[in-house]
């Protein structure tokens, strides 16, 4: 049985279709990255899955429970970490955890809280007000609170936004540790490096699911060709290439230029004369990155938020 199995989800706010026939399946124990630009419907999709929103169309189950009729049971088995810190800033870490433990009727409360604090290394900060925590610690608290009741599925909505790289690394180590214990994780993110730490990724843009699979599959299926241009005055090269037939993207990456196109022959034709036109410039075939793929997706889909 899949932990998440939803199909044809549609959610409209007014005349805007925020989620447009989204279908998604996540197997048990999988870590699935949920990617997409701002306003693409990631948060809305996650909220539908945990019963915070009702879908206008579409059916599905989460942990075997119907998302329309059994949202209360889903809430008991799912840990949902909101995008914005949503615990009580005027309560201490310990008090917040006790509150959550009591809501889930975990007994004995003290033991659960103590163990959770210990596991996440928060014991020494138990009596600190949650509002005074830094971003990284708030994130740890939020994670601690939503795994305390031993959920079978974690829904994490941009958990690492505004968190430093070290804390992000630790966070992902923790996610992998939990997943190895059988927990299923659906995590939305903007970061490409995080996407690469997922077993699979799903890419959503303007409400539509555009790609799903492993990172390698998504990159391969995109069918993009990438060339790397090196040399002096790359800004002039970029300006010259931009808009040529076959060139879909020209993006500077450090001291190089990534030139990406979906039609290999046209792209090669466009690049044929570059080395002659610009002195000292060298064109070599390159690897298409996940980011190249995503930017391609974004420019290809219509913005329904405008």
């Amino acid at each position, binding site marked *: 049985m899949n932990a998440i199995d939803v199909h044809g989800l549609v959610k409209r706010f007014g005349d805007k279709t925020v989620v447009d026939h989204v279908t998604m399946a996540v197997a048990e124990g999988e870590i699935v990255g949920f990617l997409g630009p701002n306003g693409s419907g990631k948060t809305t999709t996650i*909220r539908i899955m*945990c*019963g*915070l*929103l*009702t879908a206008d169309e579409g059916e599905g189950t989460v942990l075997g429970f119907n998302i329309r009729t059994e949202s*209360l049971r889903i*809430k*008991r088995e*799912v840990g*949902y970490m*909101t995008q*914005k*810190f*949503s*615990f*009580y*800033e005027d309560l201490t870490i310990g008090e917040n955890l006790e509150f*959550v433990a009591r*809501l*889930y009727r975990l007994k004995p409360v003290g033991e659960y809280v103590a163990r959770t604090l210990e596991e996440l290394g928060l014991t020494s900060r138990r009596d600190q007000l949650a509002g005074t925590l830094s971003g990284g610690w708030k994130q740890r608290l939020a994670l601690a609170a939503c795994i305390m009741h031993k959920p079978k599925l974690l829904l994490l909505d941009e958990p690492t936004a505004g968190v430093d790289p070290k804390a992000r690394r630790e966070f992902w180590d923790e996610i992998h540790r939990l997943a190895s214990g059988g927990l299923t994780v659906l995590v939305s993110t903007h970061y490409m490096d995080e996407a690469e730490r997922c077993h699979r990724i799903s890419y959503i843009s303007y409400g539509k699911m555009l790609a799903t699979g492993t990172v390698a599959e998504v990159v391969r299926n995109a069918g993009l060709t990438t060339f790397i241009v090196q040399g002096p005055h790359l800004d002039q090269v970029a300006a010259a290439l931009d808009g040529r037939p076959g060139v879909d993207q020209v993006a500077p990456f450090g001291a190089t230029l990534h030139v990406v196109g979906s039609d290999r022959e046209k792209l090669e034709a466009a690049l044929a004369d570059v080395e002659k036109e610009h002195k000292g410039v060298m064109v070599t075939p390159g690897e298409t990155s996940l980011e190249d793929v995503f930017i391609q997706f974004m420019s290809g889909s219509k913005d329904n938020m405008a």
Partner: protein
Amino acid sequence: MNSVFSFARLGALLIKEFIQMRRDRITFAMMLGVPLMQLVLFGFAINNDPKSLPTALVAISNDQYTRAMVSALQMTGYYRFDYVARSAAEAEALMAKGAVSFVVTIPADFARRVERGDNPQILIEADATDPSAASGAVSTLSNVASQALLRAQGMQATAAESARGQLQVVVHRRYNPEGVSQYNIVPGLLGVILQMTMVMMTAMALTRETERGTMENLLAMPSSPAEIMLGKVLPFLVVGAVQVAVVLVAAKLLFSIPFVGSLTLLLSAVLVFVLALVLLGYTISTMARSQMQAMQLTFFFFLPSLLLSGFMFPYRGMPGWAQVLGEIFPLTHFLRITRAVMLKGADFNAIGTEVGWLLLFVVVFAGTALLRFRRTLD
């Protein structure tokens, strides 16, 4: 360029401010609603010299002098004889319940004494729990009564001279013989203070969660609407209990307000009242989208309830439509209860209807709040 004052910059601020004002519908509504409401209420509803006050008549005989007296009192416009009580006890009960503001007693020997010129007396008992409400009616009394009597005697043309100046109108200010206005204000303040704090605090309850984003988390965890409502509302009952204790002790110590009724009865009524208030506040908080809006809605409710409940101005002085409107405020009913219990020593029978009203509010507010509560973020 670096001028201290620039009209262009001022213009930018003004435009921004007007745009924000237009977007905030509740502020907009307050802007139009509050002045209109005040105008209508102050202009039409409020009357510090209430007329046509319900009166009970206790008259044993039905002679011409008694009739003359009753019609004279009626002619003043202050007295409206709604009840004819068969006994003093019956009239007393009507007053304790608050059904009448005056009891006029014309003794059986009134006619005989008038004819004999033997100091005829009538007794007027006024409910002085609200001293200002009764003052107009009482002050016109002596003159009107003597003149009416003279006229009645003039028709008879007997003993006119001897009766002149001898009619005695005995006025009893019941429950508050000295007409101390604190006796009226302080028990009323109990209700007003409770209303002010209870409604406002609970009106913030849900909106605070929504504003801080904790609502999303609360909804994602297993908690039912009824649990959330009671969890929000019950703590404020405790706050209310502390306030009640403070006000009652202060009433006794600082203002020496007499407390003649049953404390248990009063406290039970207070409990129902506070419950109605916190549920009302909670209902407001299911409607408001921000704490600011919750505040505004609370004030939108406060103003008419202060004006129409009989706290600031005599309830009976208001026209019929305003009295009907006044009935929809819990404060109106609570004021009647506190004044009746504290000053008149009313028992449960006397205030049962008012307590029933408060219970109705509890049910209506709780129901509305639960219906309005959004279990999802839709």
